[in-house]
């Protein structure tokens, strides 16, 4: 609502309505996040036996650690490749499924399936599919031995991870983008047809510009998602390897904090990651978000 003057003007009711959600969020999001930030200024013994305030030392160390930057670099590469693909692939599928063709009905159902499959069980399958000897690449590998081996070659492992991430990212983005496409008024297509633009050209001149809000939403979510939620796939497919090639920041945080009991180090990286993600999201809203809002 652009003008606020016509809104309900109760005092306690909105607070009451927001209270349950806010309570949960404060308790299960802000308190834990605050705790992590707090730890990032201490050297914390896991069992609480003692903690030493070290100021910014943790940050200095993490920011001075080439491994941290390597993981960050990988995260950015993953973000750019995987999340772009995880938007572009569903986008192409959504554009196809938006057409009135026989395939589109089953597609609208089947393409949502991955959302119902737990990441843990599918990781094994992807590892198998990309197995150099028995998987899809086996014939090629037989011709050129050593061409493809995600267990040895970091790039191959990365590609495997991307393929799995895109697979599991299809449903949500597909649903949102298809919904966007379906909300384009048919007269828009008719107008473009009258203007001489065929169905191919309309994709770029009409459909894409008009689903910018949805595209933006998926990109924002996908960017943060790709940084933060590939955890399960890394854990089941590559374990961060080989040679750390798939150790993205989230996974590093998990390993440091969860396996290594390095609460302070992990918290510091979490804090940095959070700032990073927030900045990124803010940039997206600032540079992209402003431009795409036009009235229909």
């Amino acid at each position, binding site marked *: 609502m652009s003008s606020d003057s016509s809104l309900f003007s109760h005092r306690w009711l909105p607070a009451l309505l927001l209270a349950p959600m806010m309570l949960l969020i404060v308790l299960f999001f802000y308190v834990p996040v605050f705790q992590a930030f707090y730890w990032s200024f201490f050297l914390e013994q896991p069992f609480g036996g003692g903690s030493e305030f070290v100021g910014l030392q943790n940050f200095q160390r993490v920011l001075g650690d080439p491994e941290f930057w390597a993981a960050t670099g990988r995260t950015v590469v993953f973000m750019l490749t995987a999340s772009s693909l995880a938007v572009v692939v569903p986008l192409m599928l959504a554009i196809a499924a938006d057409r009135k063709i026989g395939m589109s009905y089953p597609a609208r*159902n089947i393409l949502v399936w991955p959302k119902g499959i737990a990441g843990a069980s599918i990781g094994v399958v992807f590892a198998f599919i990309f197995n150099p000897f028995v998987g899809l690449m086996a014939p090629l590998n037989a011709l050129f031995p050593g061409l493809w081996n995600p267990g040895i070659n970091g790039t191959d492992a990365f590609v495997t991870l991307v393929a799995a991430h895109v697979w599991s990212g299809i449903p949500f983005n597909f649903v949102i983008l298809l919904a966007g496409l379906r909300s384009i008024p048919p007269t828009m297509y008719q107008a473009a047809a009258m203007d001489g633009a065929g169905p191919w050209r309309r994709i770029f001149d009409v459909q894409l510009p008009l689903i910018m809000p949805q595209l933006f939403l998926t990109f924002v979510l996908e960017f943060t998602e790709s940084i*933060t939620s590939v955890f399960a796939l890394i854990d089941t497919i590559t374990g961060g390897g080989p040679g750390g090639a798939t150790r993205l920041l989230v996974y590093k945080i998990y390993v440091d904090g969860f396996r290594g009991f390095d609460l302070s180090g992990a918290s510091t990286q979490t804090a940095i*990651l959070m700032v990073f993600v927030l900045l990124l999201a803010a940039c997206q809203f600032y540079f992209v978000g402003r431009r795409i809002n036009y009235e229909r």
Partner: protein
Amino acid sequence: MVENARSINIAASILLAIGILYIVGPLYLTLSTASQSYEYMLRNGLAWVPGTELFSNMRKVIQDTRIPIQMLNSLIVAFSNALATCVLSFLSAYAIVYFRIRWAGVAFALILATIMLPLDIRVITTYQVAANIFSPLNAVLDFTGLNSLIEMAFGAPVQLELSVLDTHFGLIAPLVAHGTGTFLFRQFFLTLPKDLFKAARMDGAGPIRFLIDILLPLARTSFASLFVLTFLSGWTQYLWPLVGASTPDMQTAVVGLARLVPDADGQVPDFPMIMAGAVLVSLVPLTMIALLQRFLVQGLVLSEK
């Protein structure tokens, strides 16, 4: 429309076929492996071709594991998560959009920030909160010195304790503390014609009546699609149910499924059984998708035409 859309329709069909293949391929492998025996798998690895053991593997899962019971837990968790997310998101988005409150923007930003940092990363500290949900309160009392006052007055400081671990509430609540639902509902509310709101007010409807009589029926499809999506993500949650519940009878099916993978690296996992379990565990969400598929696309339409 009269136009030659053959080329694009053919391309679209091919694309969709590839997409379906891409999606179904891994699922097919899951199914074909699930239908082989452990011995077959030991010699050949996962299976490209289906075998005959599907039902015996499934029987093994049903008889030898707690997965059937855990599926009930999954159902409770996924369902309550979906319902609570939908209801609470709906209410908070409603408060943010339809009330004249100065702090609406702040509230929204606070809620939205939660989509930036997943539960997986804050699981350690979240566990600490869940182990005693009064710990923040205690900390505040300690920090502000109120507790020493209380101690002076009553002889003992306030140290409230309530653990929600190993409870359904504890499994569900941290999942609900997430902003995507509020974000989606807010977007949806913003696309509703403003005059509808005004008309209802002219008809004498107050905030509650407007919510129940007008907004809720109109948001039905959004509600349904958010419900499906959160149900599915609740169903497939792994780390939190693993951490938040200790007893097998409280854990969810996905956690139970992961338990089938042995930890000692000397053993080769019984992948056929695991995959049979995966198939079993995925049946509920897949049925859900098939049943509510039409809402998935309708409900999220961000702007109504």
